[in-house]
C-alpha cells in the first residue's frame, strides 16, 4: 500500500461517517451504553476486589479478655502481641468503653441494656496485622497461641466472612466475564451492522470503483478506519461518562456521609486503556465482518 494514500483513506472514512451520520450516532450511542454497563461493572468489581484484597492482606483480630485479668498479665499479653510479625495494636477497649460504644451504636434501642444487672461485655484488644515483606502473616498459629494465653476468653478474626466474600468475588468475576463477553458480541453486532448500512449506501459507488480498477483493499480500508473510529469514539465517550459519573458519585458520598469509610477509586490506566483498545479493536473486527459478508463484487 502506498503511504500517501493514508490521508485519502482517512478522508473517505470521515466522508462516510458524515454522509451516514444518523446511523453512526445511533451506533455509537448504543456502543457507549454497552461499554458503560461493562465499565460500571468493572469499576465496582475493581473496587470490591481492592477492598477485599486490602482486608485480606492486613487482617484484624479481636482478643476478648476474661474479667479477672490482672495488669501484669495484661502487660505480658500486650508484649506477646507486639512480638508477632506485622502486629499493630489498634485499640485497647475496656469493659466500660465497650459498654459505651454499644450504647451509642444501639441509639434509641439502648434501653435494652439499662435493665441488665451488670456490664456483660468483655474488655478487648483490637490488633491489625500488616503484611511483612509483602507476605500476609498466617493468622492460625497466632490465634492458637493467643487462645492458650491465660486470661484470654476468645479470639476472633475476619477470615470466615472474608472467605465467603472471596467466593462471592469469584462469582462476580465470572459474571463479569459473561457480561463482558455478551456486551462485546453486542458491540460487534452493532459495528458490523453500522458498517453494513454505510456499505449498502455506497454500493453503487463501490461497484463503479471496482469497474475503474480499485483493488479490494482500496475499497475496504476506509470502512475499516470507519469501524475503528466508531469504536474509538465510543470507547472514549463511555470512559469520559464513566469517569464523570464516578467523580460525581464519589463527591456525593463524601458530602452525605461526612466520612469516607472505604476508598472508592477509578479504574487504573491499564484498565481504561484496555476498554478503549478493546472498543477500537471491536470496531475494526466489526468492519472486517461487515466487509467479509459484503464483498462479492
Amino acid at each position, binding site marked *: 500500500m502506498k503511504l500517501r494514500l493514508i490521508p485519502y483513506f482517512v478522508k473517505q472514512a470521515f466522508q462516510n461517517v458524515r454522509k451516514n451520520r444518523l446511523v453512526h450516532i445511533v451506533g455509537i450511542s448504543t456502543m457507549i451504553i454497552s461499554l458503560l454497563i461493562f465499565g460500571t461493572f468493572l469499576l465496582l468489581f475493581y473496587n470490591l476486589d481492592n477492598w477485599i484484597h486490602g482486608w485480606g492482606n492486613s487482617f484484624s483480630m479481636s482478643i476478648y479478655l476474661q474479667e479477672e485479668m490482672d495488669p501484669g498479665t495484661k502487660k505480658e499479653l500486650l508484649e506477646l502481641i507486639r512480638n508477632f510479625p506485622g502486629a499493630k495494636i489498634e485499640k485497647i477497649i475496656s469493659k466500660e468503653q465497650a459498654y459505651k460504644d454499644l450504647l451509642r451504636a444501639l441509639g434509641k434501642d439502648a434501653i435494652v441494656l439499662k435493665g441488665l444487672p451488670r456490664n456483660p461485655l468483655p474488655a478487648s484488644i483490637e490488633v491489625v496485622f500488616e503484611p511483612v515483606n509483602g507476605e500476609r502473616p498466617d493468622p492460625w498459629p497466632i490465634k492458637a497461641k493467643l487462645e492458650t494465653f491465660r486470661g484470654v476468653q476468645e479470639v476472633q478474626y475476619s477470615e470466615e466472612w472474608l472467605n465467603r466474600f472471596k467466593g462471592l468475588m469469584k462469582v462476580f468475576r465470572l459474571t463479569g466475564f459473561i457480561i463482558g463477553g455478551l456486551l462485546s458480541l453486542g458491540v460487534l453486532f452493532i459495528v458490523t451492522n453500522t458498517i453494513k448500512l454505510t456499505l449498502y449506501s455506497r454500493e453503487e459507488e463501490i461497484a463503479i470503483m471496482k469497474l*475503474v480498477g480499485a483493488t479490494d483493499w482500496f475499497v475496504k480500508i476506509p470502512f475499516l478506519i470507519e469501524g475503528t473510529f466508531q469504536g474509538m469514539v465510543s470507547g472514549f465517550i463511555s470512559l469520559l461518562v464513566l469517569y464523570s459519573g464516578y467523580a460525581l458519585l464519589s463527591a456525593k458520598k463524601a458530602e452525605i456521609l461526612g466520612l469516607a469509610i472505604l476508598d472508592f477509586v477509578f479504574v487504573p490506566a491499564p484498565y481504561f486503556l484496555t476498554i478503549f483498545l478493546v472498543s477500537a479493536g471491536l470496531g475494526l473486527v466489526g468492519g472486517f465482518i461487515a466487509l467479509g459478508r459484503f464483498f462479492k463484487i
Partner: protein
Amino acid sequence: MIQLFHLFKNFGPNVALQDINLRIRKGDFVFVTGPSGAGKTTLMRLMFGAEKPTSGNILINGINLNRIRRQKLDLLRRKVGFVFQDFKLLTGRTIFENVALALEVAGERPSYIRKKAHLALRSVGLAKREQSYPLQLSGGEQQRVAIARAIVNDPLVLLADEPTGNLDPELTKDIMLLFRTIHMKGTTVVVATHSRNLLEETAQKQIILNRGRLVGNK
C-alpha cells in the same frame, strides 16, 4: 491485443455465447454488432473480466483472464477503459471527481490527478464544466464524462457497450467522433452497437453476432 479461443458462456440453461474465436489487433477500431440478445454485452463483459467464461480463454495483451488473480484483474482494468450505456457516473460527485476517481483508485498523486483529469475532460470538450454534477448535464455530455473517465488512465483498450444507445443522432455523431480521435492516438477501440445507421456510416471492422454465435467478421 485481444484474443478469444473457443469461448462459451452459459447463464444457467441459457446459452449466451457459443464457440467464439476472434482476434483484435493492437490499434484496431472494431464494432461488435448484432440484434438484441445476440450476446454483444456478454462478450464485452467477458473481455472486461466482469464475467467469467463457462469455457474457453480470453487473452488481453497476452494475459489470460482465466488464470489471472483477482488483484491482478483489478490492475488490468486500469489498462482497459469501459464505457457503459448507462454512463455509470456518481451523481453525488462533480464530473471532475468522477474522472479523477479512475486515477485515485490507481493511487496516483493529487497533482497528477488534477492535471490528467483536466486534460481528459478537455479532450471531450467539458473542461469548463468540471465543477458541474452529472445530473446538470445532458445525456451526451454525461457520456462524454464516462469516456473521459475511461481514457484518463491512457488505457491500451477502450471497450464501449452501446455508448450511443441513449443518445440522439447528433450526439451519436459527436461521441463516435470522440472514439475516432481516441483511436487515432493509438488506443484499441471496441464498440458494441446494434445501430444500423452507425454501422452504415463507417468502414470500420465489424464482428457480427447472432444468438450467441459469431456469424461474420468483416
